[in-house]
């Protein structure tokens, strides 16, 4: 049992309840602020102003939108499966909160005279739990698409399930390196293991892969194919209105905060201060660590918005190709390298051997990439030289008089 588990194990029931309430309130308020923040940031990136009417700087805009949504008519299509249609948004909205249970928001603090950590529970398999909960959350989207009894939502739901499954593989693989390095799957241990170096530095490729797959996982631009409004109207939530739609909206933003929190916890040192500012962690009786945590989450959120403001939506096949042919192979190779290096350092293999292995890997990677490159170039040259084949897709026949004219 780790120190954190012992510390949390002594929590009386009412503290657990209060913590749950705090997490819930943080998530909901974060959603309101995120919606506002996203709209403002994207607006500034497009040289607009964004919502600035309701409240100071428009801060209450999302609250007003929420009230408006709640007051709208709640429609259930005739062809919808009524029960599943109602349950789907509830699944989405509840699961997204659950992953916060294992995220440590602060270091050790005095909580109503009780020494604890602002973390609901510390599971030995905490990160696996987060992944599991996230996969259940996809059910909300898939069931919503299926139960709407309509084509576009169905397509959106299918896309989203395929997407989340594909990117969850890459995400899970990127986390393996973290587990190997931290020697644990519990979030508090992983945070503790980053006392000296953040994993975003040590395991930079893992961090990059996680950062990409978390965008895919949350169905956010440029990977928001599940609700590609240009193709699928609104995707899985096309038929939803009123509070049920609001629940999906809530789930999307809580999910963003959740994956950002997980990224903070696993790669950015969690609630720890930036390097060199460690003395701030004792301020306010340890509560200042929460500021660090939230600051890192906000930084990730800004990344999400920045991506959305910059990149166009990917095509579905490109997206899948990227996930399966790029992210997953790179993850696998990287895990092999990391685990080999880890075993080497545990067995106290000499520096020479470690360096030799690293060099070998680098040479191999360069060789493989140049081989791929030359292959690609040769193929391009062949295409250029090769005869222009007629298109393989079906083309309508040229009408007879026109064909005569063309062929003489």
């Amino acid at each position, binding site marked *: 049992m780790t120190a954190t588990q012992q510390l949390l194990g002594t929590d009386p029931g009412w503290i657990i309840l209060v913590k749950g309430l705090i997490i819930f309130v943080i998530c909901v308020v974060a959603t309101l602020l995120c919606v506002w923040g996203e709209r403002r940031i994207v607006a500034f990136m497009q*040289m607009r102003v964004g919502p600035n009417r309701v409240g100071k700087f428009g801060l209450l805009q999302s609250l007003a939108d929420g009230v408006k949504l709640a007051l709208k008519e709640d429609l259930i299509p005739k062809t919808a499966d009524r029960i599943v249609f109602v349950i789907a948004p509830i699944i989405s909205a509840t699961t997204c909160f659950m992953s916060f249970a294992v995220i440590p928001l602060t270091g050790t603090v005095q909580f109503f005279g009780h020494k604890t950590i602002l973390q609901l529970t510390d599971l030995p398999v905490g990160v696996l739990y987060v992944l599991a909960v996230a996969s259940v959350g996809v059910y909300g989207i898939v069931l919503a698409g299926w139960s709407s009894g309509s084509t576009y939502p169905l397509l959106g739901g299918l896309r989203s399930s395929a997407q989340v499954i594909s990117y969850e593989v890459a995400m899970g693989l990127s986390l393996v390196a973290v587990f190997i390095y931290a020697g644990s799957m519990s979030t508090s241990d992983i945070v503790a293991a980053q006392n000296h170096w953040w994993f975003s530095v040590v395991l930079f490729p893992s961090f990059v892969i996680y950062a990409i797959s978390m965008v895919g996982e949350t169905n956010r631009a440029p990977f928001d194919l599940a609700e590609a409004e240009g193709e699928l109207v609104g995707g899985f939530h096309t038929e939803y209105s009123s509070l049920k739609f609001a629940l999906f909206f809530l789930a999307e933003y809580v999910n963003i905060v959740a994956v950002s929190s997980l990224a903070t916890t696993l790669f950015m040192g969690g609630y720890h201060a930036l390097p060199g500012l460690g003395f701030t962690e004792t301020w306010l009786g340890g509560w200042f660590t929460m500021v660090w945590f939230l600051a890192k989450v906000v930084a990730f959120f800004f990344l999400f918005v920045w991506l959305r403001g910059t990149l166009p939506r990917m095509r579905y096949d490109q997206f899948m190709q990227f996930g399966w042919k790029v992210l997953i192979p790179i993850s696998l190779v990287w895990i092999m390298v990391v685990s080999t290096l880890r075993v080497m350092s545990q067995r106290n293999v000499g520096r020479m051997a470690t360096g030799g292995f690293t060099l070998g890997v680098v040479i191999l990677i360069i060789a493989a990439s140049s081989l791929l490159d030359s292959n690609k170039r040769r193929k391009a040259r062949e295409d250029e030289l090769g005869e222009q084949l007629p298109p393989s897709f079906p083309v309508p026949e040229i009408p007879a008089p026109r064909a005569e004219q063309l062929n003489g």
Partner: protein
Amino acid sequence: MAENPLVPTSGEFGLEKAAAESAMIPNEPPASFAKQLQGFWVTLRAMFKKPNTVQYPEVKAPTEARFHGRHQLNRHEDGLEKCIGCELCAWACPADAILVEGANNTEGAQFSPGERYGAVYQINYLRCIFCGLCIEACPTRALTMTNEYELADNDRGKLIFEKEDLLAPLRQGMLMPPHPMYPGSDDGSYYRGEVTGSHPSQEPTHHA
């Protein structure tokens, strides 16, 4: 029979011409990764530029000088209406938004120089598409457009503008019609711009 220039001959028709005139679009490989990352710099830099937004109800940016806004029925320099009730604007209107009914000017009630004036003049702003064809059609330059664009209301009836809503206000030296034409003038002198103001004899009290 002479060849109809509007019917294309086979030589200038179709794909050959299009192919000859078309420019080759080079099939370039995707830009390098570093180049693609430049997009992030663009959006980040845009965040610190001045937004183009106009805070509309509080701040009203002036329109372009030739913006097509609400119509206006103009007056001659002595205050007589320029509209002669010819209905050319109504006929030109592609949206059928204008209704004009002309009437005869009489000895005691002269509204415009010459014989006729527009007794009823309505523009339905629910139909108007602000194309300006009515302005082009108007032979007396009676109908022009202003830059006023705030034409919203909560009642459909209020958006049918009557003649008194459209008439230009009286400027310095103008008299409210009906009043007689400038002494010693005919409608031609109005159109030649020879009437530059009202004459005391035109005031209604003199002719009551």
